[in-house]
């Protein structure tokens, strides 16, 4: 009954295998049900793409490499092609944001004259490690509202790796408002596009209560925030002129009338080689 089975299916199955990180990457092509596959050539591309969701379907390839794997011909049975892209530059990390996605993909195309080409994609993730910054100053600042609230806060660094701990303290110099609690938020600011088309999306990734109740003058409140539980990415600055991802620590004081007083400080997040 189902004569049409396979009629709209690709004529062959393509699988991409990374045997390990470095070598023996290969693809294999296997025709369906022993049919032969005619083709005008087989190629594999490595693409680095930035995809803006609001600009639907438009990719900007910032990297594109091609390897021809086969000349036009026919494939009768499973056929395997090893391939290698050596010394590819992958300057950016894979990123999945609210409005933007940066992906790396391997694209295998079996070109065919009729019936359309058979295309197979394989995403892969790129992580770039950064050595610990040589200069990593603490963030220290005194802020306040005149005659109302004066605080001094300090975060031990301005650059944190993904599994880092934020250590710091808040010192209350003057408290004339009835504070209910104080939170430290980690906010991610993703801006995409440029100029008039800039889209900014801010997410609060962490809301960490630092203090419960109203302190008095002279009180100092410790901060110890482990970053590991949160899904952070490294800071991305102006990636290919397409987007930026920045992180901020937002210190929020809430008073008894639920008014919020806050101070936002940018921090840099970087990825540290795990076993270093």
């Amino acid at each position: 009954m189902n004569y049409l089975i396979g009629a709209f299916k690709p004529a062959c199955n393509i699988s991409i295998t990374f045997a390990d990180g470095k070598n023996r990457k290969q693809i294999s092509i296997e025709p369906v049900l022993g049919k032969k596959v005619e083709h005008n050539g087989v190629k594999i591309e490595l693409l680095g793409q930035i995809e803006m969701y609001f600009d639907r379907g438009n990719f900007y390839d910032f990297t594109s490499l091609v390897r021809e794997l086969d000349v036009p011909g026919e494939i009768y049975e499973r056929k395997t092609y090893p391939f290698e892209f050596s010394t590819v530059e992958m300057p950016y990390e894979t990123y999945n944001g609210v409005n933007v996605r940066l992906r790396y993909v391997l694209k295998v195309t079996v070109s065919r004259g009729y019936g359309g080409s058979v295309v197979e994609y394989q995403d892969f993730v790129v992580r770039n490690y950064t050595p610990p910054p040589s200069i990593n100053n603490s963030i220290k600042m005194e802020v306040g509202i005149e005659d109302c609230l004066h605080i001094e806060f300090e975060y031990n660094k301005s650059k944190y790796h993904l599994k880092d701990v934020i250590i710091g303290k808040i010192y209350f110099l003057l408290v004339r408002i009835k504070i209910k609690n104080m939170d430290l938020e980690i906010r991610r600011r993703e801006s995409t596009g440029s100029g008039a088309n800039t889209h900014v999306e801010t997410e609060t990734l962490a809301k960490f209560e630092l203090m419960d109740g109203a302190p008095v003058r002279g009180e100092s409140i410790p901060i110890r925030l482990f970053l590991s539980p949160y899904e952070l990415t490294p800071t991305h600055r102006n990636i290919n002129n397409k987007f930026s991802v920045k992180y901020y620590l937002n210190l929020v004081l809430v008073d008894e009338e639920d008014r919020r007083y806050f101070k936002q400080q940018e921090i840099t997040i970087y990825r540290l080689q795990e076993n270093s």
Partner: protein
Amino acid sequence: MMLSGDEDEEKWLAEGIAGVQHNAFYMHRALDSNNLREALKYSAQMLSELRTSKLSPHKYYELYMRAFDELRKLEMFFKDESRHGVLIIDLYELVQHAGNILPRLYLLCTVGSVYIKSKEAPAKEVLKDLVEMCRGVQHPIRGLFLRSYLAQVSRDKLPDIGSEYERDAETVMDAVEFVLQNFTEMNKLWVRMQHQGPGRVREKREKERNELRDLVGKNLHVLSQIEGVDLEMYKENVLPRVLEQVVNCKDELAQYYLMDCIIQVFPDEYHLQTLETLLGACPQLQPTVDIKTVLSRLMDRLSNYAVSSADVLPEFLQVEAFAKLSNAIGKVIDAQVDMPIVGAISLYVSLLTFTLRVHPDRLDYVDQVLGACVKKLSSAPKLEDSRATKQVVALLSAPLDKYNDIVTALTLSNYPRVMDHLDDGTNKVMAMVIIQSIMKNSTCISTAEKVEVLFELIKGLIKDLDGAAQDELDEEDFKEEQNSVARLIHMLYNDDSEEMLKIICTVRKHIMTGGPKRLPFTVPPLVFSALRLVRQLQNQDGDVAGEEEPATPKKIFQLLNQTIETLLSVPSPEMALRLYLQCAEAANDCDLEPVAYEFFTQAFMLYEEEIADSKAQVTAIHLIIGTLQRISVFGVENRDTLTHKATGYSARLLKKPDQCRAVYACSHLFWVDDQDGIKDGERVLLCLKRALRIANAAQQMANVARGSSGPVVLFVEILNKYLYFFEKGNTQITASAIQSLIELITSEMQSESTTLDPAANAFFASTKRYIEFQKKKGGAMGEKYDPINV
């Protein structure tokens, strides 16, 4: 529907408990399946119930206890690494991922306690971290409970000496540091409670704060339990730090409570050695702090300590405890200018109590305390405050109670000066206390000097003080007081007659100032006291008559005469009369006829001139007769004069029955039943007959005046006199006379007009029975009675 605050709270508490139970259930399930992630999640949710602000401390405690119990189970789970498979150090990080601070810190404390136990990290580090992290909770109630949880779980894990967590000598200091810091923070939170919320619920909040105070105080208790806190460390480190916090928190409630705590939890020995530091903090406390109670407790403790063992006394001397305390009290009083005088006085009372217990031998200390008190008192006008007066009384009573001996108090020069500051009423009360003390202990005041001081002390009772409102005096109280003074006079005694005379003169000098109302109370005891001296002199050998001897009976009698005379001006003639008679009798014993005669003369003059009341006359004449009868010193002439007078006055009494009785009493004047007493039977009979006549006259008068017969009882009484003299062998009294008297009475009794007098009948009947009895008894007396028929 509006719910009242309490109902609301109940509801919230119930909700909180339900929340705890609900999450605890899932936590247990997670624990049972060794699921760490779930366990952490539900325990954090459970602890979130403690984030409430709606409960009063009392209710919050209930909720806290529920969570506390659950945390114990969680702790057990944490301890067993095989169940969750996570290294303790990782666990310590893991719990810190919780977003809410309160659950996070509870969990951190719980893991921290396991961490210390595991000895993976030095206890010191973990404790330091925990106590530091807890700063994040600034809400007073929540913070207090959190820190109290921390204190609780860390209690057995302090790196104390001998503890398994001890690493080197330094670590005891770490333990102390930890507890001190937790204490400081808790106290700050506790003090802060007061400043939160609207002012109108202040009172309620004070109450709530009071409920929480033990959470704070517990830290001090923990400190005191740390073995490693030796005297040195206490002195150098612990105490100064604690005191610093106490002083700096500037909170009345906290300062009072914590000072008290310090005093109660640390050993006495430490207090003694750090007295200066401890006391130094006192003047720095808020002026409203009830520092007197604090200091009193301290002194109480120290004095208990002092009496606990004799070995510690030298320590007290060594540290000059008294001087320091005394100094501190002075400073406190100076610093707290607004302290009511009552506070100052009660401080002195405590100090005095301390002194009396610790240095009972140092009267100079006692005097010093009193002196300081005088100084304080004299800076203010006379005491008005009744509580302050009470304290002064307590102050003055303390030495009396201690020494059980007023004599000691009499040597304290400041004692009377303190008394001067009392108002009149209290002064009297105090004087009474002194007297009662003397009475209770039967203290004998044996020198004139002391008597002088004593009377100075009790002068409130002895004389009217200036401007005293006499009309307000309660009669009964006054009597009570004066009776006490009277009793006191008897306690002034010395075996040495010379000194005794001096005492008497001193007493006399004082009581003479007492005024008309007091003299009737005070003169008699003085007189008797003097008479006692007289008798004492008499009992001594006969040389007393030497003229140089100041204490001769004669001299005393002169003094007495003058003393009693004062009663005339009061006027209190009856009293004077009695005293004259007493003196006469004493003079009789001393063989001083002229003196006795003089006293009798005085008595008779009083009778004539001052005693007008007929009843008083009756009493007086009987007294005169009685005394005269016993006096043997008089020669015939003097005696005749006096007996004549007595009989004369007897017959001139107003009422016939009184006359009759007085006259038959006179019969005894002529019959003294002594070996060489006067025995004048004839005059006895004369008296009796005269009495009969009067009785008859009385009878007739009654008949005429009232239509009924008069008192037959007079006849019966006379009959008894007859019988007496009859038995004593007065030959003038014959059986026939008795017989006829009996018949007379019998007929009188049967007479129609006689009103029935059962008492007289009974009297007569028993008299007759007596006669019968004597008759039957036989012997000489029986024979004598034989002729009488009844």
